């Protein structure tokens, strides 16, 4: 009986419809994936070919001349990332510890929600915030302001990864420590954090990778500089901003970054 029912034309039609529908989703996937892989491949090919020693160690040439490098931007980016870590990581990691160890109450929920909101604030808006906070009172563009903007952007991811990886440490480990009479803070610092450390560090590296590519918040905080920056209270160049400002050979400068990024990964 049932077999006959399944052989009916209606069922065959349904099956055929399903096949066609799946074929169309396969087309979607093929289209999207080929576009995406084209991008990855394009960046890879162009990136590798333009990395050389000059590129990494020389200053940019004046507009119109070819050659030159972006050493100042490399150093500037490193400087900005260092500052960002200084601003963002303590806040992010400590807040993550709070959420995981003490945050199972209403305040914790509010902090979690706010963190997610902060994660969604457009980077350019955070740039404006850093501008009003640092650049307006000091009347100059500084690496400090750029670092602060990037630091604020690093916080949400640092919070969430710290919390998640600390939550993965089994409760029994904590209980064992308590049973030995170890105070709670020592349990957290010497037992829970070392256990979760690898995950937290990976999360933080990804966090750095994310803000390393940010341009928008730096345009009017760290601003950019064609020469070596003389300190954190001076305008400072960075790779992404450099890419935006380089007028003609941007292909060379621009696509070298993904190569570097790929290495990073």
């Amino acid at each position, binding site marked *: 009986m049932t077999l006959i029912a399944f052989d009916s034309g209606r069922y065959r039609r349904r099956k055929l419809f399903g096949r066609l529908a*799946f074929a169309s989703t396969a087309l979607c996937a093929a289209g999207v994936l080929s576009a995406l892989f084209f991008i990855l491949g394009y960046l890879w090919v162009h990136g590798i070919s333009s990395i050389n020693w000059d590129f990494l160690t020389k200053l940019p040439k004046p507009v119109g001349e070819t050659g030159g490098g972006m050493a100042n931007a490399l150093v500037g980016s490193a400087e900005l990332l260092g500052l960002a870590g200084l601003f963002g990581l303590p806040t992010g990691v400590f807040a993550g*510890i709070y959420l995981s160890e003490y945050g199972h109450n209403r305040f914790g929920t509010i902090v979690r929600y706010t963190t997610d909101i902060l994660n969604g604030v457009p980077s350019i808006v955070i740039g404006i*915030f850093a501008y009003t906070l640092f650049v307006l009172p000091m009347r100059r563009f500084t690496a400090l302001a750029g670092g602060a903007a990037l630091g604020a952007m690093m916080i949400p991811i640092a919070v969430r990864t710290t919390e998640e990886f600390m939550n993965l440490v089994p409760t029994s480990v904590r209980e064992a420590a308590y049973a030995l009479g170890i105070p709670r803070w020592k349990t957290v610092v010497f037992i829970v954090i070392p256990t979760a450390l690898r995950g937290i560090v990976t999360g933080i590296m990804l966090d750095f990778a994310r803000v390393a590519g940010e341009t928008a918040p730096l345009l009017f905080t760290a601003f950019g500089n064609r020469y070596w920056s003389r300190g954190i209270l001076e305008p400072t160049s960075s790779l992404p901003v450099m890419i935006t400002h380089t007028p003609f050979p941007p292909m060379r400068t621009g696509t070298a*970054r993904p190569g570097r990024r790929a290495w990073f*990964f």
Partner: protein
Amino acid sequence: MIVLAPEHVPAFPPVPPSREAAGGSAFSRSGKWGDRLFHGAALSFSAGILLLTGGIGASLWRNSALSRHAFGWEFLIGRVWDPVAGQFGALPFLYGTLLTSALALLIAVPLGVGAAIFLSELAPRRISDVMSFLIELLAAVPSVIYGLLGIFVLVPLVRRFLEPVLGKTLGFLPLFSGPPYGVGFLSAGLILAIMVIPFIITVTREVMLSTPKLLREAAMALGATRWEVATTVALPFARSGIAGAIFLALARALGETMAVTMVIGNTPVVSASLFSPGYTMAAVLANEFTEASDPLYLHALVEIGLVLFGATLVVNALAQLLVWSVKNRGGRR
């Protein structure tokens, strides 16, 4: 059979130690003060996040005072943006942001969800995992790079092929009329679509894969075809997760700055044609902020930032609520 991977076992909230364990032992003195100090430090950094987020809103509000007083609500519907004459209306930017984001979602959602259905329902698990890893890699490419690709690859393609073809076939619609510039709303929408698709695919795939096997098997047992299982069981199960992903993608599209600035043409006009160059809120901030010489100009720009902040706040809040409602259905994976 459902096999729980270790990372999917729900983490229980740690049990706070009883008073005896924490303070009553021989270590009591140092333990108690250390605990208080540690708790205080962690608490104050958490409060710092609240302060920071509040501070962003407050500083935008305060630094846009001049413009808010000068123009009031007119600011949002004024079409003239003339820094020299001190006339500021943000409509072209609002329009550009909304149009490009809508266009991006219109392209990205069907394609992204379709691809996710294929990856979660039809493709072998291993291939699907590798693909989604690569797709996630793309989500990490910085937006300046997308902007460069836009200028060098997408804009010429759009100018030479896409716009002439659209203009010839659908040119009677105001949407597709006008000369093909290449730079404009269409290119911006396309580049945004490319940027948010990885987002939509990965989240949608995840939620659809988390559909309980039992439900699928039950539907199969009732004689549903594979496609019917996908659309009547997995999709409804994943519905609110997908909606959350779309909202997150929307928030990203609204706030995206560099890539859009590089391909939209930066002209403050309100035009019905997708081929026309335009401007967005984020792009005008990126281009004009350092040039803003007089206070009113600066405050007008900050007010645009405020509008952008408000918009993404609302979109994000909705997205988080949706994503949370999925998560709170429990560890059913």
